[in-house]
């Protein structure tokens, strides 16, 4: 029997995850389909900045107001994904101090609590800041873990009955004779098997890839891929978000996150052909280093772990196909009224910060079309992991590993088995990930390989970038699915995925570590290309 859904959501980034959660909470029978793994696109390749909106206050007041509203909502509903660090917008001697007053004024208009503080006070609050600063404004910026946030949305969608499929690439948009969209055709990337899924509404939430999805449905959305490169440092230099108090420019935000900090981003248009394979250039690394050192001079001597780049979907206004008037705001397209394609909606533009609002808009539209009268509750109901009050938090042990797990999974840590010595033993020493947590990710969080595992648990995200933990985790994967060969080829993929981010910044200790990793895997373990191909 053909399973029919109310809504199919294409794209397992934060937007798609948010749409799936919202739709399923409103009682819609929902399917979420992702081409690779959840968070594989721009969601997993950004700053992880919980914008206060201050950055947009002067240039885009609408985005700024959206940001601060969503900022306050996320602090409440996603407390286990958010770090309430606050942020500073600093003025350096080379910047115009006159901008500060305009900036504060614009922030206040947008509802952002921004106030100037004495530069000495700024240094006291954030000792890593450039000591030559001449001005500082404190704003309610923070850090948000986009991996955790996406997984929490997906888990909640599943708890509300949604189905989630990963590694399924959409290859066609199905239509009936009248031209109404009726579902999607997908190809499983592992088995190559083709399947069709039917629904009343298809929501395109595929980020920059949504351009191609819209084309499959016969609609043209004018998107422009904008590449943003970032660097991750090996430890957490700053505890507050650091920004430059000037017109937004390249590499002027330094965000702390978990054990690391990130500088970014650059911004450059790239052709569509490149969006699946973003490489960070030496020039981008130079810019990021140069500007990063101005925010926090100690970055010059801090080890860089990785470089990576994401692609933002910038959307041109419909009356401007040239792309000169680009909006960073939310774009929700009803293709029935716009293009005469009933049953198809595109939600795009926007940003990580506004994913929930984007979802609300898209699901509001879907509900209207379906004749469903249910209010959006995603701003009030806390996400799984963040639902417990402090008094209700599960008791966890006192080890760093157990506390780290609670940081990653909130009150759902109680589902991680830590009852035996085996469960408690550590797989990833950099990030203190236990065997129990790895097994929890395999069983409950849809992990199919080591790259997925990294996104769910931080295995291999630390200073060693998977030197020993990759193989340990692969051993556990092999045990779970009974296929040693698959797990080994998975290690090869994982190492190449890590190498892609290490290569642009491989000097100093990073190169030592990379050489060591190669020695272990290719030398000691004998893993290489030809062997990997032979076992496939």
């Amino acid at each position, binding site marked *: 029997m053909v399973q029919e859904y109310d809504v199919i959501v294409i794209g397992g980034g934060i937007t798609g995850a948010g749409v799936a959660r919202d739709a399923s909470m409103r009682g819609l029978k929902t399917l979420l389909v992702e081409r690779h793994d959840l968070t594989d696109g721009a969601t997993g390749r950004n700053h992880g900045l919980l914008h206060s909106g201050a950055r947009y206050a002067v240039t885009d007041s609408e985005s700024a107001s959206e940001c601060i509203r969503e900022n306050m909502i996320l602090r409440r509903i996603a407390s286990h994904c958010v770090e309430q660090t606050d942020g500073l917008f600093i003025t350096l001697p080379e910047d115009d101090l006159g901008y500060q007053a305009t900036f504060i004024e614009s922030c206040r208009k947008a509802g952002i609590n921004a106030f100037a503080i004495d530069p000495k006070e700024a240094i006291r609050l954030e000792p890593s800041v450039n000591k030559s600063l001449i001005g500082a404004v404190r704003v309610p910026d923070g850090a948000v873990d986009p991996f955790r946030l996406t997984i929490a949305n997906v888990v909640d969608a599943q708890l509300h009955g949604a189905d989630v499929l990963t590694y399924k690439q959409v290859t066609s948009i199905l239509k009936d004779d009248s031209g109404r969209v009726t579902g999607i055709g997908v190809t499983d990337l592992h088995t190559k098997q083709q399947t069709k899924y039917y629904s009343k509404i298809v929501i395109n939430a595929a980020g920059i890839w949504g351009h191609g999805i819209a084309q499959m449905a016969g609609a043209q959305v004018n998107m422009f891929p904008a590449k943003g490169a970032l660097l991750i440092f090996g430890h957490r230099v700053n505890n507050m978000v650091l920004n430059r108090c000037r017109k937004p420019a390249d590499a002027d935000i330094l965000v702390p996150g978990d054990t690391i900090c990130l500088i970014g981003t650059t911004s450059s248009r790239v052709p569509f052909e490149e969006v699946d394979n973003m490489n960070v250039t*030496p020039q981008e690394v130079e810019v990021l280093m140069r500007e990063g050192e101005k925010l926090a001079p100690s970055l010059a001597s801090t080890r860089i772990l990785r470089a990576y780049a994401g692609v933002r979907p910038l959307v041109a206004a419909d009356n401007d196909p040239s792309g000169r008037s680009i909006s960073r705001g939310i774009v929700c397209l009803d293709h029935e009224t716009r293009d005469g394609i009933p049953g198809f909606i595109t939600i795009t533009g926007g940003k990580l910060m506004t994913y929930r609002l984007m979802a609300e808009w898209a699901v509001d539209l879907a509900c209207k079309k379906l004749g469903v009268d249910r209010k959006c509750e995603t701003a009030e109901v806390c996400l799984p992991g963040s639902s417990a009050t402090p008094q209700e938090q599960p008791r966890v042990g006192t080890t760093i590993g157990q506390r780290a797990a609670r940081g990653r999974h909130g009150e759902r840590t109680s589902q991680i088995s830590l009852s035996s010595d085996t469960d408690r033993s550590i797989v990833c020493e950099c990030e203190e990930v236990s065997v129990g947590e790895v097994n929890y990710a395999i069983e409950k969080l849809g992990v199919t390989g080591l790259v997925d595992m990294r996104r769910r648990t931080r295995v291999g995200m630390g200073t060693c970038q998977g030197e020993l933990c990759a193989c340990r985790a692969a051993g556990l994967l*092999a045990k779970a699915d009974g296929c040693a060969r698959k797990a080994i080829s998975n290690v090869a993929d994982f190492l190449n995925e890590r190498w892609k981010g290490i*290569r642009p910044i491989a000097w100093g200790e990073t190169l030592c570590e990379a050489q060591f990793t190669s020695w272990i895997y290719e030398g000691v373990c004998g893993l290489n290309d030809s062997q990997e191909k032979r076992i496939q």
Partner: protein
Amino acid sequence: MKFDTIIIGGGLAGLTAGISLVNKGQKTLIVSSGQSALHFFSGSFELLSSSDNPFDAMKSLPVSHPYSKIGKDNILRLAGSAVPFFKSAGVTLSGESSHKRVTPMGFLKNAWLTSDGLLTVPADGTLPWKKAAVVNISGFLDFHSPFVCAGLEKCGLECREFAVTLPELEKLRHNPTEMRSTNIAKTLTGEVLDKFAAEIERVSAGCDVVILPAVVGIQDESECKRLCSLVSRPVKMVATFPPSVPGIRIQVQLKRQFCAAGGTFMLGDTVTEGVFEGGLLKGIYTRNHGDTLLTADNFVIASGSFFSHGLVAERNRVYEPVFGLDVLASDERGEWFATDIFENQPYMSFGLSVDNEFRPSLGGVTIGNLRAVGSVLGGFNPLKEGCGAGVAILTAMRVAELIS
């Protein structure tokens, strides 16, 4: 302090050179920062594992390769003396016939000399057993039986997996990061080893051979031999993920041998400066010896590659940090790497530029009494060619000959 030869670096290359020189009656000093690539040992030394016929394949290596500089006849002679050399140093290696080692991921790789007690597969791929008991230690995450079994099953061995534990090993497990190879090896001695042997004997009933992770015998070979004698079936070991117990054992034994033969080993010390005069290195200063100049007639640099800090990469420069010797390396970072991690990575071949007698240069001037050995050398890719240990051992032996 005056020596005949001072060696910088106490890994496989430095110790091989050191033992060779003290054996020849030289007053020898090794200055070692303490790290050695032997800690990440595969269980076997490789000569040129990318080829099934390494001695033939050497003929087609470029002239810049350390093997080409040693020369074919010297290689044959020195390689032939390696097993007796290590035997007399207290390290038993098997390498009479060509064989393969079994990697922790279950792959078979060509080997040259393999540490005693480790599982090897003859070149024809046949093993004398039918049924193997692959026995891991409960909770040990740096050895995965399924990987090893998958490899051995390709050699026609029927594998059965077991996990054993003992109360003494359980204690290690209470601390989530203690279950590592070296800690297990320190536990599996004396009476605990007897109990361990009894457990292995029990679970492996009906099997022809027992295969274990290499977690026994960190101090010397006797515990491995005793374990074998306590089990009625042959016991063979397979290398684990680092740290490597057999590697540490070899490192400890070679250092012990060097000191017993009269060598001086300064552990945890670092060279801070070299005094050069007229194309010669007169002496060195070290961190622990302050303003005492350590002098010698000859010097050997055996400081290793990047991960041993024998080479250092900055954003746009690769240099040798002890003396600033001339290196074979590109200054364009874009040229250091290949896109795929498993491709030939150019940075792996970076290292010192030396003449045919392994003398490096400083600012274009050859240093007449300084020689370089092991992975600090440039012009070869130890990983792709599978020759890291072979180059370390043979360049060290060759340089010891050239010096004395």
